[in-house]
């Protein structure tokens, strides 16, 4: 498969990058590690006129503790750098747990956090070659008007398939976004729109520059469970991230549960903190939260495994993740 013909721009600063984005309009596209973009270019899912390679922008990389004890992770930090970072390891274990499962080692060496948070949504009927889609006649998301997952519907169900986002949701992360009018902050939970086509709240002339992890979530015990067929390479078929604060008496003081790969967005399970905070561990409580997780997750036939199985596993994995976080992370 060939690459579509396009110009590559290599801005040196965020301002320059934003200017190119603003000038080129919908014809521009950002590329960083390229692990998601390049295959999609080869499949002609994207045919940009300008590919904005942001790797030369040095300000976009760096894992640093900022004023007030928050952690700033640059959009260009590779996934491997995050897994290997002592700062992340000691303060935000759920993030390490999740990022370590992304794709395989080669992709983690190339892929960036910003890229993983801006992944294209995935669907078996969409992530296919130009020829394949032509034989199909397209789908709602591209080149057609029928959703093959939910025929008759007007909504695209292509699934959010990132692993880092659910972990960051459990850490109350914020995005730093640069645009023509400067920089803005946005809670990660508001970044995702739960729409397979318009997946993120990012203007055409905007780019993600960093992620902030607040000081108040330092030390939350947590972990990520991922349903996949292979132990490497695979995108998640379902995933759940859990972060808890548990006091000396075993009472939960703060809790987040987020699910991924079962909706067009990574989503927090809203009931989790409400039900868990102030409680001690019990199998019944954990099962109740697991039931809430499968009400939040609505898998459809977008990937290799069936919706029934993915829902089922979401329940099992949520329960296991909560049990492990609660029991293993004892201070």
């Amino acid at each position, binding site marked *: 498969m060939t690459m579509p013909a396009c110009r590559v721009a290599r801005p040196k600063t965020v301002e320059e990058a934003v200017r190119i984005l603003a000038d080129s309009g919908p014809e521009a596209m950002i590329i960083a590690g390229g692990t998601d973009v390049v295959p999609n270019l080869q499949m002609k899912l994207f045919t940009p006129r300008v590919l904005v390679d942001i790797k030369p922008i040095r300000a976009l990389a760096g894992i640093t503790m900022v004023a007030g004890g928050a952690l700033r992770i640059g959009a260009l930090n590779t996934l491997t750098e995050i897994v290997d970072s002592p700062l992340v390891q000691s303060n935000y274990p759920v993030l390490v747990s999740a990022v370590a499962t992304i794709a395989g080692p080669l992709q983690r060496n190339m892929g960036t956090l910003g890229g993983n948070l801006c992944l294209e949504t995935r669907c078996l009927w969409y992530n296919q070659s130009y020829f394949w889609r032509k034989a199909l006649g397209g789908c709602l998301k591209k080149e057609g008007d029928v959703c093959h997952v939910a025929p008759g519907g007007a909504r695209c169900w292509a699934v959010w398939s990132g692993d880092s986002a659910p972990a960051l949701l459990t850490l109350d992360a914020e995005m730093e976004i640069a645009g023509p009018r400067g920089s803005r902050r946005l809670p990660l939970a508001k970044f995702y729109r739960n729409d397979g086509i318009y997946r993120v709240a990012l203007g055409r002339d905007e780019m993600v520059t960093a992620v902030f992890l607040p000081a108040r979530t330092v030390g939350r015990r947590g972990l990520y469970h991922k*349903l996949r067929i292979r*132990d*490497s390479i695979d995108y998640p078929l379902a995933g759940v991230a859990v972060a808890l604060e548990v006091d000396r008496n075993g009472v939960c003081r703060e809790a987040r549960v987020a699910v991924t790969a079962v909706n067009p967005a990574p989503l927090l399970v809203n009931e989790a903190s409400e039900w868990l905070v102030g409680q001690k561990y019990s199998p019944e409580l954990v099962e109740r939260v697991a039931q809430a997780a499968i009400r939040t997750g609505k898998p459809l036939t977008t990937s290799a495994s069936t919706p029934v199985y993915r829902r089922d596993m979401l329940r099992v994995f949520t329960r296991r993740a909560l049990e492990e976080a609660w029991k293993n992370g004892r201070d």
Partner: protein
Amino acid sequence: MASHSHIGKPLPMTDAPGKVTGLGKYADDLTVTGMLYGKILHSVHPHARIRAIDTSKAEALPGVKAVATGKDAPNPYGILPIGHDERVFALDKARYIGDNVAAVAATSAEIAEAALDLIDVDYEPLPAWFDPLESMQATSNWIHEQKPGNVEKEYHHEFGNPEQAFAESAFIREERYYAGEVTHAAMEPHSTLAIWEPDGRLTVHSSTQVPYYLHRTIAEVCEMPMSQIRIIKPLVGGGFGGKSEVIPLEVAAPVLAKKARRPVKITYTREEVFYAHRGRPITIADLKVGLTREGKINAVAARVVQDGGAYCGYGPVTVLYSGALLGALYDIPNVRYDGYRVLTNKPACGAMRGHGTVNVRFAFESTLDQLAHDAGMDPVEIRRRNLLKAPCITVNGLRVTSYGLPECIEKAAERSGWAEKKGKLPYGRGVGIACSHYVSGAANPIIRSNMPHTTVNIKVDRDAAVTLFTGASEIGQGSDTIQAQIVAEVLGVKMERIKLVAADTDLTPVDLGSYSSRVTFMAGNACLEAAKNIRAQVFAAVAKKSGCDPAVLEARDDFIFSTRDPGLRMNFDEAAVAAIDFHGALVATGTYAPPEEARGGKHKGAGVGPSPSYSYSAQVVELSVDTETGQVRVHRIVAAHDCGKALNPLTVEGQIEGSVYMGLGQALQEEMIWNEGRLMNPSLLEYRTPTTLETPEIESIIVESNDPEGPFGAKEAGEGSLAATIPAVANAIYDAVGVRINSLPITPEKILAALREKEKQRGGKVARSNGGRR
């Protein structure tokens, strides 16, 4: 006799340095001046009449040098003489999504791709057939007019008296098994460079396992004499059967090159590899096995339907192998086999590692496990009771010359700790055993003839280099290395002295190809014969020069010496020159053709299955099942394989491990997923071959039965182990959690469904196990 100097040594492969440094050239690495890039237009319909094709717009695109359609090369071809149903580009009908309709050669790949979009094809869609059981009931819209009812071929065999034997059986099991479709997933996608030479000849570099058949086919399709065509096989990055027949691009590139009068290279995308396919077909096997009270297998009856896809390919051979090897692993006196190869509107299936034997072996070994359970017998013991007594001829006419299966079973059981583990591990963890076997080359060629199956030439010149000219195709399995080892051993020279010229039809004699695990046995025997001839000539010259009897001479470590006279010693360089002076030239030819007695019975379809020799395997798998998720973790596989004699234990172990790995993929996770003839996972992201993380420790045990006819006793090593892995996994899952999955791949979802079904039937909860999850 002194021990061997090269045979039995774990020598590294001769082509490894080129491969690991990147200096070695695969077909896609080749470029020549003026080379064009070819791209193929594939059908978007699973079944459609082609009313017209307008290529004018594509031809007008700057940079396009040739556009070819079916009219440019209408001659049909196919690997089997009875199955010439393919054309390089569809002439009248497209028969699957991905079928080849036209092709473009242009000055860049981008232009060629753009030109494909400018070709207008006027299709008339036809009703299509996707399900083999439905397809074989078709009364209209047949995929090939000459194949009414969409049945490519059916065979009905009966040996002994199965009906009576079933009536006399104490235990009978009847089960339906399903195996999903799998593909080879060789690392190297197919690639062909066809060079139209200035003198009007054609040179084709291609990723093939079968240069000889490619040579014939290009001659037929391009209407050129074979003498004007040269086929060269560069390094090949894995075949596994996927390159063992002529693949459309191998003909498309020459057709384009001839039309453009320019060199044309076509390299498939991974998706196109899936459409070219030739993998293992969806198989529905209804199996019935009867057992006596003493645990003797009395009879086996099988009805096998294979979903062959849209073209014949190797289909009839696949379905015949399924029958021929079904009953021949053990001593089974009564066998009935009904095999159907069915056409559907999907890519053509073909030969894949363990050709035809794998899915029926899954069925048989799973059933045998159940019968052992019914009879209250240990699965190892039941296999012990049903061994052949070699040498012998099986009930269906297969000649067995050596039979290391008993030793394979004993060693696999012993090294896996079978006796301590079977039925004794905690719930959720289990062990399973299964066996398999495979041919060491087919005793009958694809095209009936009396020509040798392989010929090699050796030339030694005054530089004392030993050049072996062999048609055998190195595809990563180690054929070059093994042949060099055999020649070095016989001549008593160092490996470095052997130069190999392989698989180049202008230079090397005919070898039928690298399929059915034939090369070590057949080309090996030819090398042995040629090298012995050279050695005799050298000894004659040395004897003459030193006035001794040639019978006292031996060769080793680059010296010829006398066993009687310690003073008589001549280095190989001197001896070679002496031999050239004495004989005028130092050349020899070796050939191999299977003996008449090995060629099988006389019934219809008897030609497939016979081999000069068979390999044997026994494997024990230990695994855990997570009963909440259905996920399986394989801990260890002990694989014992009888390869006759391990000429190179390093490469034999590599082949055993590779076979086990592939079997494991088919057992647990690999499957081509279809939706109305559309392949939903035509990529290595979504078609999930195992990674190193799911691949357990594999302990390979080499069993040497020393075949009387194999070179130095050697026989097959590259395929036979695969088929045992799958049922060993299925049997271990049964041992672990008590459910039997008769459908491949054995996904977590299937296991979970079976566990819940069992729970429901018991009306209560079954024990939970997380499968030893960390």
